[in-house]
C-alpha cells in the first residue's frame, strides 16, 4: 500500500510539473533577452535582468490598465452585491407570486448567452454614450451579475429564521432598518461567495471590454494585453514580460483569497 501511495504521489507531482510548465516558460522568456533565448531556449538567465519589465512598463500603459481593472472590478462587484442583496431579500421575504415571477425571470436570464446580446448591447452603449467610460460598463456588469447574485442571496435569506426580524419589527424597526442592522451582518458568507466569483469573472473578462473600452485610456488588463501582444508579436521577450506583469496581481489575489474562492465555488455548485 505504501509503495502504491508513493507511486500515486509521484504521478500527481509529475502532472503538477506539467501544469506549471507553460507558466515557467513565460517567466523564463520574460527574464531573458532575444539573443539569450536564441542561444539556449531552456537555460536559466545568467543574471537577473529586468530590462524587459522596465521596457514593458514604459511602453504599455500598465499602470493605467491596472487602475482601470481595479476601478471597474471594485465598482461592478459593489453594485452587484448591493442590488443582489436587496432583490434577494425582497424575493425571499415577499414570498408572493409576483416575487417568484421575478426570481424565475432572473434564473432564465442566465440562459441567454452573451453572444446573443452583444451587438444590441454595443448599439445601446453607443447611443447612450456608455462607451469608453467607467459607469457604462459597470452598469452592464451589474445587470449581468444580479442574475446569479439574486439566486445566491434569495437562497441564503430563506435559510435564515424570521424570528429576529419579527421581534425587531415589533420593537418599531422599519424594513430598511431591519435589513441594515439585522440581515446584512448575517449575509457575510454568501456575500463572500458572490464577491469572489464576480471579481474573478470581471477582472478576467475580455468580451465586454472589447466592445465597450476600445479607447487606450480605459482598457482593462486583458484588453490591453490583447492589443499589446498583437503589437509586439515580434519582440516576444517583451510581450512575455508584459504577460508576467499581468499574471502577478491575479496570482497574488488568488493565493490570498484561495480559501474564499474555493468555498465560493463549492457553495455555488450546491446552490446551482
Amino acid at each position, binding site marked *: 500500500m505504501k509503495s502504491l501511495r508513493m507511486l500515486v504521489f509521484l504521478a500527481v507531482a509529475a502532472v503538477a510539473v506539467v501544469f506549471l*510548465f507553460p507558466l515557467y516558460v513565460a517567466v523564463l522568456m520574460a527574464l531573458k533577452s532575444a539573443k539569450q533565448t536564441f542561444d539556449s531556449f531552456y537555460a536559466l538567465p545568467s543574471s537577473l535582468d529586468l530590462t524587459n519589465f522596465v521596457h514593458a512598463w514604459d511602453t504599455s500603459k500598465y499602470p493605467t490598465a491596472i487602475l482601470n481593472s481595479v476601478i471597474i472590478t471594485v465598482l461592478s462587484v459593489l453594485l452587484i452585491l448591493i442590488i443582489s442583496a436587496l432583490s434577494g431579500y425582497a424575493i425571499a421575504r415577499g414570498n408572493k407570486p409576483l416575487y417568484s415571477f421575478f426570481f424565475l425571470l432572473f434564473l432564465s436570464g442566465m440562459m441567454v448567452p452573451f453572444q446573443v446580446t452583444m451587438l444590441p448591447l454595443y448599439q445601446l452603449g453607443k447611443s447612450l454614450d456608455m462607451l469608453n467610460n467607467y459607469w457604462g460598463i459597470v452598469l452592464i456588469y451589474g445587470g*449581468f451579475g444580479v442574475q446569479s447574485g439574486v439566486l445566491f442571496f434569495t437562497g441564503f435569506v430563506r435559510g435564515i429564521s424570521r424570528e429576529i426580524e419579527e421581534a425587531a419589527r415589533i420593537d418599531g424597526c422599519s*424594513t430598511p432598518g431591519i435589513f441594515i442592522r439585522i440581515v446584512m451582518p448575517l449575509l457575510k458568507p454568501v456575500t463572500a461567495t458572490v464577491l469572489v466569483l464576480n471579481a474573478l469573472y470581471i477582472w478576467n473578462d475580455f468580451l465586454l471590454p472589447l466592445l465597450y473600452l476600445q479607447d487606450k485610456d480605459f482598457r482593462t488588463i486583458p484588453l490591453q494585453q490583447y492589443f499589446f501582444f498583437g503589437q509586439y508579436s515580434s519582440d516576444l521577450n517583451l510581450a512575455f514580460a508584459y504577460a508576467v506583469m499581468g499574471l502577478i496581481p491575479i496570482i497574488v489575489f488568488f493565493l490570498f483569497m*484561495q480559501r474564499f474562492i474555493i468555498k465560493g465555488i463549492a457553495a455555488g455548485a450546491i446552490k446551482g
Partner: protein
Amino acid sequence: MNGIGAAYAVPSGKERKPMESLKKTMRREMWYILFLIPGVLLFTFAVIVPFVTGIRYSFTNWDGISRKLTYIGWDNYVNALQDADLWTVLGNTFKYAIILTLLVNVVALLFALLLDSYLPLRNLFRTIFFLPSVISVILAGFIWSYNYSQGFPKLLSHLGMDITSPLGNPDHALYGLIIIAVWQGIGAPMIIYIAGLQGIPAELSESARIDGAGPLRVFRNVTLPLLAPSVTINMLLVLTGSLKVFDLVLVTTNGGPGFATEVISTFIYKNAFSSFKAGYGMALSMIFFVILVIVTIVQVTLFRKREVEM
C-alpha cells in the same frame, strides 16, 4: 405568517385595528418592491432589452451600421439553416464541447479522488491545479500559442522528437485548443467534486469495504452514485460553458487554419461586427440560444432521472 399574528398579540395587549395592520403590511410590501426595483431595472437594461432588440434585428437585413433596416421575415433563419458554414461551425463547436466536457470531468474527478484521500502536499497540488483557472484566457492563449510553436518542440527535440504546433494544422488545431481549455478548466469542477466527496459519509464506503468490495467497486457502487449531483452540475457547467467558447479561439487561431476551429460564437461575432451582416448574425445567435436551451433541458432531465434511479 403564523409567527406575525402571534407576535402582534404579545406586545400591545390591546386589540389593534385591522386598518392599521393592513397599512403596516402595505408599507412593508412597498419596501420590498423598492428593494427589488434596482436589480430588475439593471437586469432589464443589460439583458432583456438587448435580447428583445436582438430578436427584432434577426428579422431584418440590417448591416450593423446604416440607419435603415428592412424587415425580411424569416429569410435570415431560412438562409442560416441552408448555410453549409453554419453546420460546419456547429459541428466544430459540439465536437469541441463534448470532448472537453468529458475530458475535464474525468480528469477533475480523478484529481479530486486523489486529493481527497490522504496524499502529502495535497493542498499545494490543489493550488497548482486550480491556478490556471484564475488566469485570463487572453494570457493563457498567448502563453500556450508560444509553447506550442517554440517551447514544446524545443523540449521534445532533445528527445529526438520533431513536432510542430497543433494550432497550425487543420486536423489538430481543435485538439490543441481542447488541451488549453482542459488546463484552464480543471479547477472549478475539481473543487466541486472535492466538496461532493467530503459530503459522503465515510461509514458508507467503510462498510462496503468491510463487506469485501474492492476500491473500484466501492467507487462504482457507493461513491459515484452519491456524487451524482456534483456530476450533473459539472457536466452542465462545462458543457454550456464550452459551447459558448469565444475568447480562446479569437486569441489563438481566430477560427483558422481555414475553418478548422471556427465555432458558433466567433462565427456570430464575425457576421455581426465585421461582415456587415448584423441581421443575419442575430438570427444565428437566436438559433444558438435555442440550441443552448434545448441542451440544458435535455441534460438536466437526463441526469436528474439518473439521480433518482440511483
